[in-house]
């Protein structure tokens, strides 16, 4: 194969891709916009929603009467030393039917004590029914969470009072205290939900970037009648396939590069938007995460992404050369995005799975696991090489299949 001829074929396809506005949008603009949106915007929104619940004063319905200390505890605001409200109390309103009041939205939650509640520990047990839409995140993190926390504190206060009368301190209640210490490496701890999003987004953007060039350079060329003119020139078929593979991989990697830029942009925005935002920032961090890469991790990520781009490009070219038209090729390759999304979603459950070394040798899926490991900071060199090797082997086999197709009359003249 002659590199200059390969590059000529590739540059022709790349120039055509560069001049397509739709492709430029999907290659550059979408990763730059979608990644900050998914990795920062949504967690930020969720963090603000949940954090905002603490300051909001929810309405809680009450059937009958509650002990006065409990009523006081429920309605009391928690304030910072400066006087600002950290956690607002709830507003208690009398209701007749607690279930109906919650369902109608009149109140966020409702309380009903079937029997009078004890006001002293040891004077029997009482039951307090809490009505709330428990499948609703707003109710769960708002009124219900406040009632739950207040009743737990109320129980503890009563018990502590009673123990005090017996000459015992509050530590009697907790002879053993649990101190959880997160033993995961700092990089893994900081990665949060990002760890799962990065493989999904990166491979999806590689696919969408590669798709535009691959389809245009194969089925599109057939449809326009430009492939025949290329095949009667002195360029060898192997050079045609290699050139198209190169052009497709370059476009895919450009998209991947812009998706990395999207993550960097997320980091910058995250620092700006979350600085001094206290509890909400912590919540956002919990739903999002922070990407930290070592040099080795960065190199492994680069190798994995390049090999995955090559494999995806080879799949697309091998498939779309069979199609009579661009549209037909789209129907062939659309299921590929499912082949990426489904395993990427499965990665969320990877903590429950025992992943053997062999998983890294599965083309594409091995890359997803490897990218996840890079983000969490626990990828080994052997696993990285397995994932890269599997992708390269897959790309080679599919490249040979594509070459065979470019030699077959029934494929080239199928239109």
């Amino acid at each position, binding site marked *: 194969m002659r590199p200059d001829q390969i590059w000529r074929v590739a540059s022709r396809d790349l*120039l*055509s891709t560069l001049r397509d506005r739709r492709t430029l949008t999907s290659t550059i603009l979408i990763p730059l916009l979608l990644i900050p949106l998914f990795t920062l915007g949504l967690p930020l929104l969720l963090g603000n929603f949940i954090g905002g619940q603490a300051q909001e004063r929810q309405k809680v319905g009450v059937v009958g009467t509650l002990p006065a200390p409990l009523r006081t505890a429920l309605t009391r605001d928690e304030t910072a030393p400066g006087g600002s409200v950290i956690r607002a109390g709830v507003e208690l309103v009398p209701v007749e039917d607690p279930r109906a009041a919650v369902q109608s939205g009149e109140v966020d939650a409702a309380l009903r004590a079937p029997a009078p509640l004890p006001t002293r520990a040891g004077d029997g047990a009482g039951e307090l029914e809490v009505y709330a839409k428990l499948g609703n995140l707003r109710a769960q993190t708002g009124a219900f969470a406040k009632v739950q926390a207040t009743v737990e504190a109320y129980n503890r206060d009563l018990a502590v009072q009673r123990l005090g009368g017996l000459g015992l301190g509050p530590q009697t209640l907790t002879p053993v205290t649990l101190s959880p210490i997160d033993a995961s490496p700092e990089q893994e701890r900081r990665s949060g939900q990002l760890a799962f999003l990065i493989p999904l987004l990166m491979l999806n953007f590689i696919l969408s970037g590669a798709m535009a060039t691959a389809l245009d350079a194969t089925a599109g060329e057939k449809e*326009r009648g430009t492939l025949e003119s290329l095949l*009667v*020139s002195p360029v060898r078929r192997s050079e045609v396939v290699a050139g198209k593979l190169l052009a497709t991989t370059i476009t895919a990697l450009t998209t991947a590069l812009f998706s990395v830029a999207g993550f960097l942009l997320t980091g910058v925005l995250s620092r700006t938007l979350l600085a001094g935002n206290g509890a909400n920032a912590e919540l956002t961090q919990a739903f999002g995460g922070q990407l930290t890469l070592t040099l080795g991790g960065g190199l492994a990520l680069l190798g994995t992404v390049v090999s995955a781009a090559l494999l995806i490009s080879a799949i697309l070219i091998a498939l779309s050369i069979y199609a009579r038209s661009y549209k037909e090729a789209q129907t062939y390759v659309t299921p590929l995005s499912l082949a990426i999304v489904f395993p990427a979603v499965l990665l969320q459950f990877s903590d429950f799975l025992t992943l053997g070394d062999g998983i890294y040798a599965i083309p594409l899926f091995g890359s997803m696991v490897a990218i996840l490991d890079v983000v969490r900071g626990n990828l080994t060199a052997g696993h990285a090489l397995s994932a890269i090797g599997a992708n390269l082997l897959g790309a080679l086999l599919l490249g040979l299949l594509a070459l065979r197709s470019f030699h077959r009359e029934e494929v080239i003249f199928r239109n």
Partner: protein
Amino acid sequence: MLDIQNLSKTYGRYTALRDVSLTAGEGEVFGLLGPNGAGKTTLLRILATLLQPTAGRASVAGHDVGREPEAVRRAIGVVNGGMGLPARLTGREVLRSFAGFYGMTRAQADTRVAELDAALELGRTLDTRAGEYSTGMKQKVVIARAVIHDPQVLILDEAASGLDIFARRTLLDFVAAARRPGRLTLYSTHVMSEAEEVCDRVAILHQGELVTVGAIPEILTRTGERTLERAFFALVRGMDGEATRAS
């Protein structure tokens, strides 16, 4: 320049070309005539190394199409009616990229593009994106692309189909001008008047078989007809009659 011996091509049970033999020399415009489905495109695709013959052999510019496909492709330029251009590239970019495929330098390519601009009256077409071309403009650039390397053998397969009267005239004048020593033009068409105007000798194909080969005046004399179209019908009717009698 062109030597075809007992060439056949079958697709399953369908025979597209049956035992065709003919030769053509340099300095001539050789016509391949026949209705749609006669086997003209199959024959030309074999000569362009796009299809493999089922039997027989062919050589173009001294190179065997089966054994030396790359040398054949260096020696030929191909235009067919269905050929297109990359919509987002300009004519000049297309011509430069193809000049590169033939090993021409940028300076050589630009000189050749200027020559073709003059010969085919490309003008502003050269710097306009192909997606904006009319059929005539597109076909001119397709022809320029096929001859960018000044091929020894130019293959034109239904190259005038769909062209308006002006573009068709430019094409026919270009073909006439391409008749020169050391060069052969293969001109395939189902329009007999085009062949009469530009071809020196013609081969008539019908249902994959070669009906006759010869100079146009010779065919007219042999059939006793005044036009090539009438001669074609006389020959084909004779062939069909023989086939009916044989069956």
